[in-house]
């Protein structure tokens, strides 16, 4: 028996993000065990080889399918193709970590667009909204990871600047902040290398921050609206 449910429930929210978990798993088990006694001749059938092969095949042969998938929305037949192939390829094709971070930010933004489209068609339900915002978090986390470490204080100031919503401020909002920070730090570092005016980087930073905050609000609103309509439908 354990008491203090208030604390326990709150602490339950502290979790590894799935990207973090898989990165961790990779670094723990990733180092291949030195003892490989016997290698099956069907080794090319293992997922390790099949997945890249499949991606390559799809890129070359299935160009039609993938470009058709580009406009797919959650629930569409081709949506999985879009998310798990097109977007993975997009990330893979970005040459530098900075470019990859940029792609991740763009993918995060795309989730918001999808939520908007679905909502306008009246197809956004609670479950899809959650999937989209989780996916958003994931891309944002990736972007942060790729953009490298960022100063801690910046996040906290940004987070406290954000008006506290009555409902849980949600991870999504937090991650939006992180994304903003990641993009801005990235922007500043590249800018610093080129030694431009500080003012310019600051402007860029503010523009980014503003636009992402707006996006975050949109996603939040869509999410609440989706659960509200679902509640009404239940009645």
């Amino acid at each position, binding site marked *: 028996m354990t*008491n203090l449910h208030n*604390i326990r429930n709150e*602490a339950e929210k*502290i979790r*590894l993000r799935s990207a973090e*978990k898989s990165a961790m*798993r990779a670094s723990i088990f990733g180092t291949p*065990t030195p003892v490989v006694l016997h290698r099956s001749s069907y080794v090319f059938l293992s997922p390790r080889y099949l997945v890249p092969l499949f991606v390559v095949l799809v890129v070359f042969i299935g160009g039609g399918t993938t470009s058709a998938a580009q406009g797919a929305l959650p629930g569409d037949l081709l949506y999985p193709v879009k998310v798990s192939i097109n977007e993975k390829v997009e990330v893979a094709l970005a040459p530098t970590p900075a470019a990859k971070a940029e792609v991740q930010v763009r993918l995060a933004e795309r989730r918001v667009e999808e939520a908007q489209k679905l909502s306008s068609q009246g197809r956004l339900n609670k479950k899809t909204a959650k999937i989209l915002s989780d996916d958003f978090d994931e891309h944002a986390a990736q972007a942060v990871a790729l953009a490298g470490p960022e100063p801690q204080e910046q996040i906290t100031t940004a987070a406290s600047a954000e008006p506290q919503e009555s409902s849980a401020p949600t991870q999504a909002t937090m991650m939006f902040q992180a994304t903003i920070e990641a993009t801005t730090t990235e922007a500043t570092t590249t800018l610093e290398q080129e030694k431009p005016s500080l003012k310019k980087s600051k402007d860029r930073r503010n523009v980014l921050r503003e636009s992402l905050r707006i996006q975050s609000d949109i996603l939040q609103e869509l999410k609440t609206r989706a659960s509200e309509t679902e509640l009404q439908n239940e009645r």
Partner: protein
Amino acid sequence: MRDLEKTFNHAFESFSDELFRHASMRMKDRDRALELTQECFMKVWEYAQKGGEIRELRPFLYRTLRHLIIDEYRRKKPVSLEQMVEGDGDERSVEDLLPQDESNTLEAAIERFEGKRALAALQELPDAYREALSMRYIDGLSPREIGDIVGETENSVSVRIHRGLKKLKELLEHHD
């Protein structure tokens, strides 16, 4: 070999979140908590691969994590080690005589506060209390299990939990 990896993989799936949670309670810095969690699993996995004997994985993982956290504290601020053991040792016998259900009263008092606030207050406690309370109430370990992990008697763990609760309650009511 395969079996071992399977077992360990399963352990990773089941315990990574709670160990990370525990590390987060002790470290504050999320990235550091992540690193420690990973290091903990890597160390234990290495140990297991070398044929080291592990009777029960979960306490073993907690023990390893604990050592890593202590190392971390030691490296960062040598002073805090003293804070970690602050207050314990003296007047232990008096605490032992307290009626058992006083803990329940304290728990009930803390339970009245909102989770977010209570958790934040818990993170302000000295580490020794933070450790005991998070193991007890967040990781759901019994005082005996905690004793095994930290290498102390069940009794002194209970005392620490009790004191921690008291401090936590004071902290919460003080802020009111």
